């Protein structure tokens, strides 16, 4: 029994068909608990007043935006190396989800930035890096849409995901160099003293878990759709042969 068994679309469909409702339900539950806890049962912060509460959307969305691209990079590599169709389709399925998380991160950031920094948008390194990440997502999605043959599209987008990852990483540090920003440091880390207070930290952890589960559920559902669409295409093509 190896993990690659799940690369078989049939096996994948069976397993995820069973898992999907549970993951979705758990995601809904965790998000509900985390957000309600965060929004209604935590005190206002000294510096930030009630605006701090957007952290429960902003931080998890931003984390997932990066995680989604990382997942696309890994699945693209698996497709290029082992030619598992499920892997390529999972990368395709994750891209729009990742883009939406990126946009949520940007929009909630703007909403938070307005009262705090007095501006909707600043060319702060983190914000700029996220904007660039959104552009990478757009290019990736557009390339999938433009190429007709699905295997060709999978190959090209995989190469783009790898090269794009390197350049997205470079951009991240280039913009840091280009402009020191307004953005506060990371809100979460294990080794720093200056973390958010425990009272915000626990609901935030719950929200992050919820976003991860939400991402998994959305990607599984979308991958299942892609597999079905691909299967349909293959069957139609096969009928045409005769």
């Amino acid at each position, binding site marked *: 029994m190896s993990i690659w068994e799940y690369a078989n679309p049939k096996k994948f469909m069976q397993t995820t068909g069973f898992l999907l409702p549970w993951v979705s339900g758990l995601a809904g539950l965790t998000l509900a608990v985390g957000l309600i806890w965060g929004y209604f049962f935590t005190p206002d912060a000294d510096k930030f007043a009630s605006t701090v509460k957007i952290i429960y959307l902003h931080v998890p969305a931003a984390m997932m935006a990066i995680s989604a691209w990382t997942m696309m990079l890994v699945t693209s590599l698996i497709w290029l190396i082992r030619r598992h169709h499920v892997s390529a389709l999972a990368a395709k399925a994750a891209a729009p989800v990742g883009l939406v998380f990126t946009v949520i991160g940007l929009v909630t950031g703007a909403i938070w930035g307005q009262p705090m920094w007095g501006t909707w948008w600043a060319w702060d390194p983190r914000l700029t890096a996220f904007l660039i990440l959104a552009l990478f997502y757009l290019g990736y999605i557009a390339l999938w849409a433009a190429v007709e043959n699905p295997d060709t599209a999978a190959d090209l987008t995989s190469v783009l995901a790898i090269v794009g990852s390197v350049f997205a990483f470079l951009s991240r540090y280039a913009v840091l160099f280009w402009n020191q920003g307004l953005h506060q440091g990371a809100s979460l880390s294990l080794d720093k003293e200056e973390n958010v207070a425990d009272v915000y930290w626990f609901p935030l952890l719950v929200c992050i878990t919820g976003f991860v589960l939400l991402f998994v559920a959305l990607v599984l559902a979308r991958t299942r759709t892609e597999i079905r669409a691909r299967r349909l295409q*293959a069957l139609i*093509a096969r009928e045409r042969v005769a």
Partner: protein
Amino acid sequence: MTLLSVQDLAVARAGVPVLQGVGFALEPGRALVLRGPNGIGKTTLLRTVAGLQPPLAGHVEAAPDSVTYAAHSDGVKSTLTVAENLTFWAQVFGTDAVATAMARMNLRDLADRRAANLSAGQKRRLGLARLLVSGRAVWVMDEPTASLDVDSVQLFGAVVRDLLAAGGAALIATHIDLGLEAEVLDLTPFKARKVSQGGVRSAFDEAFT
């Protein structure tokens, strides 16, 4: 010694299997003509043999650096002269057969003319002259005689006969008689079948078994 051997080859166009179970071997001095109705997959087969696309199943074996491919389009640059076009390919393949190639394909009078000012047939002759400057032994050709007149067809037939006499081999998709002693392979029986009738499965289908 076999110059080119193809075993149990299945090829796909845009992911759809078109031919399966194709097999043949080319010995030195032999020519093989591929026949079959339009859309059967002649071009796809030739591209696979030339190494431009991977086979769906089966093997293509050829001596390294022995195959040269002539596609529908000639790869002629219209702003370069005939001689410049040929010299470029001669340099790419590391030969110096430009003068002889122009003589053989009756291009000498056109040497300094820009390819933009050539007729379709003349351009085709230039494209075929590229095969001569490649210096390779196995010519894989896709409808080489398209837009050639009767004299040029005979001229090219003689060029291919010389190749065969010199120990080369040719794989040609054509409906025109080049005046060669060639075996004919009709591709119609190799048309890809439905999976339920023993057809090859594409990679995505395989995953579902």
